[in-house]
């Protein structure tokens, strides 16, 4: 399992990847963000969660530094005991929310992924 970001021909990286990057740049390779640590940019604890989502749901936007190129990601946190600026690492989870409990067609996307755990 990997947390695939996409590097474009202009050197920028995005998570998730897109068919075209900044300025129409084409994707050139994937970068596995699970091999890196990240810094918490901001975080929240959501207490009003939709069907199939844990309650409370700790969430964060984090920023990875991939060889000098920054790339952000959103993800669940393993704990609500974090602060802005904390260092976190991705930890694999085989089901982030219950497929089919919400409105999204279960077969239309993947449901496993990574939570961020304070280092």
């Amino acid at each position, binding site marked *: 399992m990997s947390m695939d970001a996409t590097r474009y021909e202009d050197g920028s990286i*995005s*998570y*998730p990847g897109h068919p075209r990057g900044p300025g129409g740049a084409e994707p050139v390779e994937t970068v596995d963000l699970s091999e890196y640590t990240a810094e918490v*940019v*901001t*975080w*929240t*604890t*959501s*207490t*009003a*969660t*939709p*069907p*199939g*989502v*844990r309650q409370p*749901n700790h*969430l*964060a*936007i984090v920023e990875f530094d991939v060889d000098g190129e920054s790339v*952000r*990601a*959103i*993800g*669940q946190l393993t704990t609500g005991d974090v602060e*802005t600026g904390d260092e976190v690492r991705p930890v694999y989870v085989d089901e*982030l*929310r219950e497929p089919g409990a*919400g*409105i*999204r067609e279960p077969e*239309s*996307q*993947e*449901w496993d*992924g990574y939570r961020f755990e304070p280092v």
Partner: protein
Amino acid sequence: MERVAIIGASMTQFGQREGEWIQDLLAEAGIECLEDAGVDADDVEHLYVSNMASGEFEGQTGVPNALAHDLDAMPAYTQRVDQTSSSGGAGIFAAWQSVASGASDMTLLVGGEKMTHKTTGEATDVIASLTHPVEYKTGVTLPSFAGLTARHYLERFDAPRESLGKVAVKNHKNGVDNPHAQFQKEVDLETILESPIVADPLRLYDFCPITDGSAALMLCPESVAREYTDDYVVISGIDGATDTHVVHEREDPTVMGGVVESGNGAYEMSGRSPEEIDVAELHDMFTILEFLQMEGLGFAEQGEAWQLVEEGYTERDGELPINTSGGLKSKGHPLGASGVAQGVEIYEQLVGEAGPRQVDADVGLCCNVGGFGNCVITTIMEAAQ
């Protein structure tokens, strides 16, 4: 190009409309708007319906055609406009285009949504379905985005938590004088700051409610408007823009590019500047959004909107009254109706029909936000001279 006028407006009672469904709500606003404008249904050439999710909420699709039949407006051309929470603003843009292009001499726009029969979790999930798969699987909701952004804003700009609460205090106070508002009661700061946490640091009263309701506007060329009334408004500037679908990919979490771009476009088209706006309706789905739009539209420098709120600048008797209707916060947020209802408020302010909410205004602006700033429409209206 001839200017596009608005000659009539209406909105239903917003709130929990038990036993009434999307077709009922749309028809109620549509009939009232026809009556307000003094237009026969036969004369409606285009009929636009702003609606995000009647299929998902209610299992009812094809609502524009249903409304044309209910209003006896056939054979009017019909079209549904879905742009999530900014469907109403997008409807104004579409209706403006239909008239400005010369395709229609009388366009009725009706926005509406039926939501309250769903649980909060179910309704929140329908709205959150606009997110990218990597976002959706985390369980992120639009309120969660607001919590993430509010924390970043407060920490970065050293803004007090109370300033967000004061947005809610102001908008609830305004809503008291709006007979169509879902909540017509004041809420004090202490109650707001002690209400249950929904998305830390935001609490219950930082969020708009789930709402049923509908609103409508009648648009036509200015030359046609003069045949009906002397009291009309013109759309002097309008533009729409998008930002990233994936919210965390934005360079600055406190800047909504769609607000900036659509605002700039509307200012350029109208020849107006932020200083010339007398009254504004902003998309306060969450209190933090009022700050971001004030800054994106040039009413405040980045990171300083909270100071204007603290100073009373945006109160009804302030320099720039914002959300005299009560905003989404107090008036309610029936998704497809909200942008249209913003237009209804500005129309009423400019023709002097806002009753106890009336402010001295010749130029008004509304900003309707879809997603978490994903798509935005900004409209500038002016009283007919």
